[in-house]
């Protein structure tokens, strides 16, 4: 059984069919890229998969469990975490707090235990502190733990956003144009981060991207979207040579 299964999902905005009969299966530990020209409906697919939009038709299953109509936070609990095209960090909080918020579900003390500072508060907070610092260390960001998220350089902000998504312990990570606005150096760093995730975490990744170099470099399988429809599927080499893809990207 696939980890993520989207079956014939459609999204209709008034008279516009933004996504039409989209099908996708992602297996465990797979890295799939979703590409397509501007306005092809990539982000709409993403928003459906993560519960921001409810598909007008079709079904989405994560780990065998249907998530259509679930709230975004329920989808996180089901095992899918995401990042955003325009980075969404908790800007006025520290890097460590950004991670701790995503770590929320691992802490068990109740509101009253927290307010009255009962033993479980101390125990849980200590565990969270250590776990989150260790987590930052994986991404080589422990030096930034007490920096305000807004003061990080751009590339590091992106990295933090990915780390934060991973802190929710997802089974699948969805990255929405992570290389957008990055210079080649930062993109290179991003590729390393993605490789790091592949090595250290046992999860699947769905990647939306414009940057062909990045997609072809890291993805195992690629889905090409145009005008809301899938026009090609296959390995990077297959898609690279697919005439439809060439037509869409380069024109006739």
């Amino acid at each position, binding site marked *: 059984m696939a980890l993520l299964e989207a079956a014939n999902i459609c999204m209709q905005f008034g008279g516009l069919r933004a996504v039409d009969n989209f099908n996708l299966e992602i297996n465990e530990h797979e890295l799939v890229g979703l590409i397509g020209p501007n306005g092809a409906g990539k*982000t709409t697919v993403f*928003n459906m998969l993560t519960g*921001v939009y409810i598909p007008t038709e079709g079904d989405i299953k994560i780990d065998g469990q249907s998530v259509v109509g679930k709230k975004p936070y329920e989808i996180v609990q089901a095992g899918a975490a995401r990042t*955003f095209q325009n980075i969404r960090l908790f800007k006025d909080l520290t890097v460590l707090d950004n991670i701790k918020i995503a770590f929320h579900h691992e802490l068990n003390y109740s509101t009253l235990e927290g307010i009255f500072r009962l033993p479980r508060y101390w125990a849980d907070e200590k565990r969270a502190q250590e776990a989150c610092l260790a987590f930052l260390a994986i991404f080589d960001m422990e030096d930034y733990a007490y920096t305000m998220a807004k003061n990080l350089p751009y590339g590091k902000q992106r990295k933090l956003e990915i780390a934060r998504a991973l802190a929710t312990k997802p089974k699948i990570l969805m990255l929405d144009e992570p290389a957008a606005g990055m210079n080649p150096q930062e993109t290179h760093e991003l590729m390393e981060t993605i490789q790091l995730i592949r090595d250290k975490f046992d999860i699947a990744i769905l990647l939306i991207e414009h940057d062909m170099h990045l997609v072809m470099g890291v993805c195992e399988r690629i889905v090409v979207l145009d005008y809301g429809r899938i026009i090609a599927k296959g390995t990077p080499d297959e898609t690279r040579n697919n005439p439809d893809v060439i037509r869409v990207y380069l024109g006739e």
Partner: protein
Amino acid sequence: MILFLQQIINGLSVGSIYALIALGYTMVYGIIKLINFAHGEIMMAGAYFAFLVGVHLGLPFFAVLIISMIGAAVLGVFIEFIAYKPLRKAPRISALITAIGVSFFLQNLALVIFKAEPKIMPNLIVKRPVNIGSLQIGTVTLATLALSIGFMIILDVFVKRTKPGKAMRAVSEDKDAALLMGINVNRTISITFAIGSALGAVAGVLFGVMYTQVYPTMGVMPGLKAFVAAVLGGIGLIPGAVLGGFVIGMVETITKAYLSSQWSDAIVFGLLIIVLLIKPTGILGKNEKEKV
């Protein structure tokens, strides 16, 4: 039936005053996203200007009205320049608190200058009933309706047909894009304040004439109701303010006449709550979803 029709006309006339004030709220909100809490006080200032000119110079109604409009427009532009302009890049809530501060300031300034007891507004419009069929309507009510509707038409033409009007719409749509198109944003904002304040002054003069009183806190309740009207219709939208004003005036007059005058405020605010819950951006407002 006759009584009911008369109440409808009263409602329309009260509503037209709310609509005039609501236009000021909505235009300012549309252009700088600020709830200008001092707008009720601009209306009060307009009424005091009319009172001063009416008593001391004894000019005819239209002259008084125009002087009061000019006075309020200057005041509005001045306030924007002194208090709001420095805060354009600050958190919006700071600008909101500043607007509240300006409102306090104007109220207390009027209190210091004119003292708390109400001044009697001179009879700028000859008060007598006019018979239309079997309906009896006061001249003030008729004048209020006619003037308000007249000014609304002028505003509509101004906003749609003239260059500064188009600039106003452009700035409220997208300030940065307007700037790139060579529109003088600062001047456009000043023009918006001037027009909004002048319309507020018209409302103040009519309100003063209708109730024959002028006092420092006279802008508070009409200001709040007009603000509710602007939100009800869809804040930032000129037709929304007019619609909201008439709806609030109507609902208020009808509940006062047929249900209960004590509960009329609760019904007005209750209506606002219900509309916002059903349509969070007001009756004519468009739903804008944040882009993810």
